[in-house]
Each structure stands twice: as structure tokens, then as C-alpha cells.
């Protein structure tokens, strides 16, 4: 609804105003936060500052706009549901979180998208879009003092509003493995193993990043960063080279509350989900029994340094990194990222494997194709 405009910047004016200057704007909602961003030529950045100050207080939310946006979001969800991995990961996430709001996919359930009312949306907007709950980051070609003056002039006049109380419902400790399966069209089987992981600002998060890098390959935490191949990772060698899977990848997410570390494998047509899971378990046990070498840890740190350098090249990414770090920790988290990774020891990695990568604490999901059968309507 934030793209539907305000009195000052109606929808049709808003997008065009930024595009006309050669700029780019978008927004995305993540588990913990929603971000709005504009990238513009340096001498046009006032436009972004003005429209964001306006948007966070003066969005209109007409009923007609709510109805047309409702079907657009339902269409977005239907597009996601076409993907086997969306269907599987939605079920895995729901099973991993029975109590915490991470139970729900960000896009929401169909029944809620069908029934949610204009006032529900507007109340959410009023409650959470307040200065005490917002972070503004700016990166690019400007003088800090000058831009701070402009930001103060635009944003200090906005009414404070009470900072919302976050309704956190702690997830109880999982006791015992949870297994689930999803059945759908296609001829490809997928496996997703999800382990409860530390939050982004917990000390264990950094050794866990190295652990994930050893198991499934280096990946960038920055949502806009690129990655590298993972053909020398332990699970690629154990699964893909032994023709149990055709691909494997994994990832950790920096969140406010503890979320998940996931391992996803696309099963080889001549193999089975069971063989893939057994091989994953063997590799995890190897890491639990024996710490990696110092060289293996140093290698993971060098990979992280390279990905960090790539991810910091564009100014959009620089601004994103700062804001993202502020959401679950602080700007210092971003500044100290490489140093904290460099401090990880082989024993830290072994400890992570023993503490988190446990069968009795995981959710194991399998997407099984309905080969040659009628798909139920």
C-alpha cells in the first residue's frame, strides 16, 4: 500500500518522479523489518528524502486501493506457490516455529490476504511507521554535515509517536526431530533440513557463518550481494560428486530472534531423499567429531572478505548494509564483521556443529513429486 501514494505524491507521480531522474526505488518486507529505498543521482537525493518523510506519515490507504492491491498480492503468492521450494520451505518454517511469529511466511496466508481489512492495514501503519521505530541510512557522494541538516529539517518535525512494543513470543526449545513432506507436480525431489540457529547479534552467529561456509559454501548475507560457487564445500563433495544430489546450498539469516540455518538439496534422479539425508548426517557427524583445520577456517574467512568487498561496491548495498545491521544489532556489527569472522577458531566451529546441528533439534522436509498421477484440484 506504500506505493499507492499520498496527497503530495500520488501513486502516479511517485514512481515517475524518481524514474524521471534516472533513479531507482523499491521496497521489501523481510522477517523482522520492511525497507524502502531510493538510489538517485547525488544532486537529486532531496527527492528521496522528501518522499520518504511524506510516505511514512501521509499514506492514504483508500478502500479501492486496498481491493486492487489485495488481488495483486494474492497473485504474487500464487506465483510463489508455483515453486516447489516455496511450498516446502513454507511448511518447514511453520513446523520450526509453533509459537514465534516466524511461523508465518512474510507474504502471509491466503485466508488472511482474502480477509484482511483496510483498517487492519492502516492500524499497522500508524503503529509501526513512527520515528522511534525507524532507521534512515544514506550513502553516497555528499558532505555528512550538509545532508544531516537536510534530514533534520525534514524528519525532526515529524510527530514522535509512541514506539511500538514488539510482541515477541519466544519459541520453546524443540524436543525431537520433526519430519514432514509436501507432495506436488513435477518429477524432482527436494530435501530441506532446517536447524535452529542463533540470532544475528549472538556471539555464536560468527562461528556459525564459518560452519555454514565449510558445509555448503560461502554466501553473502547481503540480500543484494552475489555469491561464488560451492563445489569444494563438504556437502557438495558428499552429495553431488557421489551422485546423490544434483545441487546443494545452505544459508544463515541475520535476524533479531533466533531463526534457522537451512540446507537444501535437489535430489539426483537415481537417488533418494533418504540417501541424501544420511549423507548430510555423516558430514555433520564428521565435523562434530573432528574440528576443521586452521587452513580451512582461514579459507572461509578469505571467502567472506571477498564477498564483503563485492557486496560493498554499490552505494545501494552500502546503505543497505548499515540499515540491515541496525535492525538486529548495530552499525558496529557491520564495521566489525570481518574482524569477528577472523577471530573464529576450529574449535568454535566444532562447538557449533555439536550445539546446533543436531538431529533432535531440526525440521526435515521433503518435496515429493506426484509422478504421472493426477494432481488433486
Amino acid at each position: 500500500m506504500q506505493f499507492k501514494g499520498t496527497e503530495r505524491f500520488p501513486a502516479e507521480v511517485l514512481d515517475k518522479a524518481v524514474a524521471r531522474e534516472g533513479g531507482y526505488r523499491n521496497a521489501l518486507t523481510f522477517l523482522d523489518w520492511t525497507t524502502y529505498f531510493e538510489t538517485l543521482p547525488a544532486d537529486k537525493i532531496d527527492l528521496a528524502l522528501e518522499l520518504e518523510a511524506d510516505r511514512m506519515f501521509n499514506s492514504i490507504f483508500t478502500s479501492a486501493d486496498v481491493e486492487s492491491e489485495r488481488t495483486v498480492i494474492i497473485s504474487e503468492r500464487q506465483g510463489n506457490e508455483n515453486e516447489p521450494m516455496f511450498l516446502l520451505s513454507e511448511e518447514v518454517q511453520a513446523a520450526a516455529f509453533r509459537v514465534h511469529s516466524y511461523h508465518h511466511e512474510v507474504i502471509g496466508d491466503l485466508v488472511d490476504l482474502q480477509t484482511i481489512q483496510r483498517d487492519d492495514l492502516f492500524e499497522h501503519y500508524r503503529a509501526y511507521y513512527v520515528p522511534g521505530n525507524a532507521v534512515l541510512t544514506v550513502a553516497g557522494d555528499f558532505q555528512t554535515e550538509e545532508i544531516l541538516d537536510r534530514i533534520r529539517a525534514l524528519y525532526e518535525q515529524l510527530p514522535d509517536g509512541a514506539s511500538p512494543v514488539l510482541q515477541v513470543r519466544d519459541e520453546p526449545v524443540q524436543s525431537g526431530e520433526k519430519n514432514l513432506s509436501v507432495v506436488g507436480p513435477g518429477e524432482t525431489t527436494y530435501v530441506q533440513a532446517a536447524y535452529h540457529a542463533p540470532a544475528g547479534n549472538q556471539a555464536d552467529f560468527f562461528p556459525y557463518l564459518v560452519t555454514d561456509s565449510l558445509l555448503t559454501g560461502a554466501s553473502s548475507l547481503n540480500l543484494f550481494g552475489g555469491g561464488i560457487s560451492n563445489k569444494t564445500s563438504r556437502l557438495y563433495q558428499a552429495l553431488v560428486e557421489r551422485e546423490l544430489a544434483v545441487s546443494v546450498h545452505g544459508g544463515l539469516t541475520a535476524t533479531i530472534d533466533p531463526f534457522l540455518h537451512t540446507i537444501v538439496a535437489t535430489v539426483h534422479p537415481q537417488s533418494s531423499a533418504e540417501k541424501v539425508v544420511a549423507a548430510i548426517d555423516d558430514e555433520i557427524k564428521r565435523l562434530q567429531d573432528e574440528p576443521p583445520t586452521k587452513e580451512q577456517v582461514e579459507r572461509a574467512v578469505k571467502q567472506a572478505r571477498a564477498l564483503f568487498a563485492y557486496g560493498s561496491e554499490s552505494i545501494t548495498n552500502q546503505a543497505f548494509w548499515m540499515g540491515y545491521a541496525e535492525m538486529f544489532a548495530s552499525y558496529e556489527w557491520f564495521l566489525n564483521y570481518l574482524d569477528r569472522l577472523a577471530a573464529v577458531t576450529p574449535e568454535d566451529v566444532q562447538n557449533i556443529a555439536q550445539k546446533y546441528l543436531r538431529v533432535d533439534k531440526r525440521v526435515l522436509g521433503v518435496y515429493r513429486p506426484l509422478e504421472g498421477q493426477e494432481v488433486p484440484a
Partner: protein
Amino acid sequence: MAEITEAHRLSLPGPDNIMRTELSNGIVLYVRSNFHTQSVVVTGYLMAGGLFDEDEKLGLADFTAGALMRGTNKYSFHEIYDALESAGANLYINGGTHTTGFGSKALAEDLDLVLDLLAESLRHPVFPAEQVELLRAQILTSLAIRAQDTREMANRTFDQIIYNGHPYARPEDGYPETIQAITRDDLVDFQRKFYGPRGMVIAVVGAVEPEQVTEKMEHRLGTWENSDQPAPFELPLIPEPAEPLTRKYDIPGKFQSDLVLGAVGPERRSPEFLAAALGNNILGVFGMMGRIGEVVREKAGLAYYAYSSLSGGMGPGPWYVSAGVDPQNVEKTLEFINTEVERFTSELISADELADSQSNFIGRLPLSLESNAGMASAILNLERYELGLDYYRRYPDLVRAVSRDDILETARKYLSSDRLGAGIAGP
């Protein structure tokens, strides 16, 4: 309208800040230094695309490209990827339609490493039998996944309609039966015959000095010769469209259908390309997906994505409108899109629309050149489409020179109703 100051104009790539040279065997090399970053990007292509594939072995060029890094004279598969991944670098070689492309991103300190591996993989692959079979299973699985992807299959169906019988109607990654028919010897032969310096172009951008890059390239690739390498593929003419055609590809069990409606567009080198690109921006890109987004997404609420796309390319790529919708709304959406395309080909766009899109094109140029990868790709296009080293300096004037009449004329020529085809995929 967005303007570019003289200082900005001179910071754009041009003859004084891009080095263009030819290695002793004719490989064209471009280098641009950027010491604001720690990384270096290498990207390029050689004339070994899927157009050379026989129908029975469709996917051979792509399979060959994918197998090059599975082992070489000097390095095993493990050694190649251990070196790359230890450095946090990436390197890929991918088959395309006209060309096989390659690219790498690395910290500048690792440039020698990626150039060694690139040159070895292109020149001396050994195609280990067990690696070829591993790769074959991966390709077959990706084809099985593709067959379930409504967006991909709508595009394939559309290509078959508008390129009826033309090589562009074929998917360059092949079909399961053609991938099964390819032998290891086919890969060896394809590399031996089609890989070579003729027509090869490389761009390097990042924290590197041009002279050093030239020396490194000359050493690794400048001595490469291949007298068997054929002339570039001559594309046959596009067949005249028959009746407007709509065809559906069934994928049971899916929640959303995808549709693609359009026609064969101009190639990138065509004098009409820029008018078509500005027109396409108005039709289905500008702001929130242009006129198409306004009607299909904003007003009717039918789709999360509904946009238009102009491919350009070395030959006449497609120009189409695409949307993902509830399977029940396919007909209704096609009507809305047809109405908009009809309006676009029969009425002049407004002066404001043209000014907005011109301003957008000129203003976004610096942003598209911000990263080393964006710059490298822009430089490669200078050579691929014979645009001239000063193209990006001339670009604002070229954009401003396009008129409303130019756009209407181009739209009529390419998107008239008798040329349109539509591909649909879904339940």
C-alpha cells in the same frame, strides 16, 4: 529533464579512459581501471553459440561450455574450484545463442589466478568421462525443472510461434532426448572446431593497470590459433508470420499461469533500436511497469508482475509483454494487453511520456555503470554491437533525438496485430 554535467560526461567510458587493443592473434581486449574498488571483473565471449548445434544434438554448445571447467591438461576439477573458491573468486563459462560467454569476479590480487584458469579451460579442456556424466544428470534435472516452470514454458511456447522454423525457435539448452544423444566425443569435437580467437572479445574492469592486463592476456591467450574455426553463423531470415497464433502448454497442478504476447523485434544494431527501447519503456517498464503495469496491475489488480521487454541482441530478438495471473484470468488479461498494444501501435505517445522516458534513460546511465560488472558489460556491448568507443558520451544526444513519430512508426512496424503471437503455460 535529467541532464549530465560536463564533468559527469567525461567520467563516462570513452576513448580517453578505456583502453582497446588487439592481441597478436586478433582477440579484442578492453580494459578500464577503477581503483575505487578492491575487485576486478573479467567478462567476454567467443563465437561458439548454440546456433551451430544440429537439431538432434541441441544443447551441445551449452553442454560443452559447462564441461570446460571439469578438468584441463594442467588442472583437475578439484584443483580448479579449490583455487577459485579459496580466493573467494568466481568464474563461469556459459553457452548462449550466438556466443559462449564467460565471466569472473575476484579480488584484484587474484587476477593471475582467474586468467590462468580461464585460459586453461577455454584452450585445454579434457572432458573427464565421469565429470561429463555428472554434468549430464545436472542438465537433465534442470530441464525437468524447466518443464514445470510456467514462466519459462510460456516463453518457450511464444518463441516457437513467432520464430516458427527459425533457429531462434530452439531452446539453446536442448531437450532431454538431445542431451542424452550427446557423447563425450561430441564435446571434444565442438571445442576443437568452434573455440578460438576469431571473434573473441574480453573486457576487464577494476583495480588493475591496462598495460599489465594486456601483458597477462597476451601471455595466456595471444598465442592461441585455430585454423578450423568457421566464420560466424549466418542467421536465416525470420519467416513471415502466418495467422496470429495463441498456444497453450499445460502444466497441471500449478497455481498461476504465465502468458507472453508479442512479436519479433529489431536487433540491437538496427537504427530503430533506440526508438523501440524508449517505446518499450513507455509501454511496460517506466515507473511501475509503464502502461501495462498501470492497466493490468494497478487498475485491474490482475497480476503481481506485468511488463514489457525488448531483447535486441545480435539478431532480431523478441519484443513482448509478459504477466503472471490467476489461471481464470488469462483471457481477460490478454484482452487488456491486446488493447494496450493496439493503442501503442495506433496513437502517438504523449510529449510528457517521451520526455519522462528520455530523462529516465539519460539519468540512469551513470547508475548502470556504477559497478565493475555493469561497466564491463557496457564496454563489451560497444564491440558486440559496433557502437563506437564514444557511444556513452553521445548517448544523451541520441536519446533526445528520438521523436514521438519515430516511436509510433517503430511500434507499428514490429507490433502490428498481424505479427503477434501468444504463448501461455499453466494448469
